[in-house]
């Protein structure tokens, strides 16, 4: 393995706020892969809500902040295909007409990776020392799949988790209906889309749903629990890092603060 690169973790606003477990799982996986991990303090959000709402000025302001905070590191790693896609695919577009910021945006974009594909494609990780007795299915979150071409990488690593059986999900690449602010701006449509998704999930017979994006997972988990399904939901990093002792997304007990 190469000498230890210095990786900055872009933890994402949703992981920071809702499910820090995913952030710690990411740190563990990166350290296992021989990386030094830092968490720049100046990070907040990648700017996607503003960008996708048409608020270009604010999206640029936030992007400049992210670029400045992350450019000193060898790599930027994100436990989300959507936020990684934002930095990787959209930051250069945001500054296409800005001679000062364009090269900085492109440089950060070039070294920004989604967590699982970083492990496999950049660090050559082929297996993980994890164990979980479960029948799982995997949802391909849209941005990771289409903007970053992440498809086989999580499946490759999940196959090496002892005790885990992976069942393919029919229409695994169909959107779950989350779509950032879409799920609240068009709640009824989003709800209809996720209901189709949970029907497909239930049809696999799996007892665990995995994905690489917390937004999609919260959407699907919320529908599954409302419908009374006994299917657990976790971020793929939690399973790969062997950190599945705590409650799944949308379930569990109160923890002491």
């Amino acid at each position, binding site marked *: 393995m190469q000498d230890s690169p210095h990786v900055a973790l872009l933890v994402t*606003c949703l992981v920071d706020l809702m499910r820090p477990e995913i952030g710690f799982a990411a740190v563990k996986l990166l350290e296992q892969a021989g990386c030094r991990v830092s968490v720049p303090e100046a990070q907040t959000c990648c700017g996607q809500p503003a960008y996708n709402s048409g608020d270009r000025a604010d999206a640029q302001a936030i992007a400049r902040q992210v670029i400045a905070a992350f450019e000193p590191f060898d790599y930027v790693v994100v436990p989300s295909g959507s936020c990684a896609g934002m930095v990787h695919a959209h930051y250069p577009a945001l500054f296409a007409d800005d001679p000062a910021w364009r090269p900085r945006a492109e440089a950060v974009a070039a070294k920004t990776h989604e967590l699982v594909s970083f492990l496999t494609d950049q660090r050559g990780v082929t297996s993980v020392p994890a164990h979980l007795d479960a029948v799982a299915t995997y949802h391909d979150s849209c941005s990771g799949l289409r903007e970053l071409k992440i498809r086989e990488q999580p499946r490759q690593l999940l196959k090496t988790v002892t005790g885990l059986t992976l069942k393919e999900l029919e229409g695994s690449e*169909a959107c779950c209906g989350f779509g950032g602010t879409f799920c609240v701006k068009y709640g009824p449509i989003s709800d209809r889309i996720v209901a189709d998704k949970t029907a497909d999930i239930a049809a696999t017979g799996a007892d665990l749903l995995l994905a690489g994006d917390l937004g999609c997972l919260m959407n699907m988990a919320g529908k599954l629990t409302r419908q009374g399904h006994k299917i657990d939901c976790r971020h793929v990093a939690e399973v790969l890092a062997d950190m599945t002792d705590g409650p799944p997304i949308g379930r569990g007990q109160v923890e002491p603060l």
Partner: protein
Amino acid sequence: MNAPTAPFVGISDPAQGPRSPSAVGHGVSDQFKHNADLALGDAKLQVALAEMRSSFKGRNEAARKGLPEFQALSDHAKAIKQHVLANLDYYLERFEAKVKAAGGQVHWCNDAAEARDKVLAICRSAGARTVTKGKTMVGEEIAINHHLEANGILPVETDLGEYIIQLRGETPSHIIAPAIHVSKEGVADTFRAHHTDLDPARPLSEITAMLAEARGKLRARFLAADVGITGANFLIAETGSSVIVTNEGNGDLTQTLPKIHIVLAGIEKVVPTLEDATAIFRVLARSATGQEMSVYTTVSTGPRRAHDLDGPGEYHVILLDNGRSGVLGTEFEDMLRCIRCGACMDHCPVYHAIGGHAYGSVYPGPIGAVLTPALFGLAHSKDLPNASTLCGRCESVCPMQIPLPKMLRQWRERSFERHLAPARERWGIKAWAWLARHPQIYRGAMALAARLLRRPATGRIRHLPLGGAWTAGRDFPAASGRTFQEQWRRRARP
């Protein structure tokens, strides 16, 4: 020709059935949310959409896999259109000259009203009473049926799907499968209600029986028509020809039997040569229906010549601009590459959920969401570019590689700049952005929010204040209680 004699209840009387306001082109896209709610509550529509989802599943993918050079063809098709759009004036003028040389006429129309009036004038010049139509989306765009009916001319749709929805007083809900929202049983009911001269006890459960019945009804219409109107998949600059593809052959009968053939086409439909059109055909049918080729491909060049056995005496091409030239040279130009295959709709989760009518536009789905604001104005259609999850599947299946999500975002930017988005949404985004630009305050706010959203014993929140749109149908998975940033700092790592 004689006046129509066969009973054809419904079509000649626009008051017969409810006609969606979208039949006049635009204006109801601003009721998108309301339309969507109706569609979600329409049990029959939901059954039809579920069938559509499963019937389209994999078809496009299989057709692509069956053609290893699909990507190369798609690149080629895209390059042809790019070239045309960069030189549109040249090819259109060349096309016009060739049409004239072949004895036909070209009519340049700036907007829908001009195009409608031109069609009517041509029909009147022949004393037309019945007009048969092949499928044409530009015909929908200019609401030509409504205009002809209002002026005492009977338009008859001859594409089976269009025929069905015309009887029902509806508009297309898909650009290649206009009646995809109607079930087989719905078609049988429609035929029973309108073909009242036939035996009420006839069996109509088989698709073949319905097809035979429609064919019988339409045969008389083809023979009675004074004018035939078709769309055009392509206009060929080198020959002055128009080309249509159909699976039913109705287009051929529409354009060869009557005295006059009118072609309705957007100005972006021109390509340099027949060979170019052929290249694009190879990706068109595969993307539209999963076929290798459509069943019929028909090339028309001018009116009947002296030695021809059949064909129309007059050949007219209506070239419609209607906002298209305003898109040239802008960040929206790519949308003019669209070849109307419908693949984006067939793979869109939002279209799957609500169907085409909810868009309130002639062009539904992802391509409709970018075309409609350009053709009919953003103020009336601001919901359309917003009502997308930006999942990107539309772009991945588009054979012309139109960057649909990018253009949806561009419309959102214009909408945001012009303050068309609801104030609550705008200020919500602004507030979040402000917080995101102040990391220290952000961290404190998130630490507080994490406690407020902290996991109850069940791990889920059933009712979220201000989050009713989410919790109406879903639980909200609760937070762990302390943010990652807080916990990371407390670990006092080096």
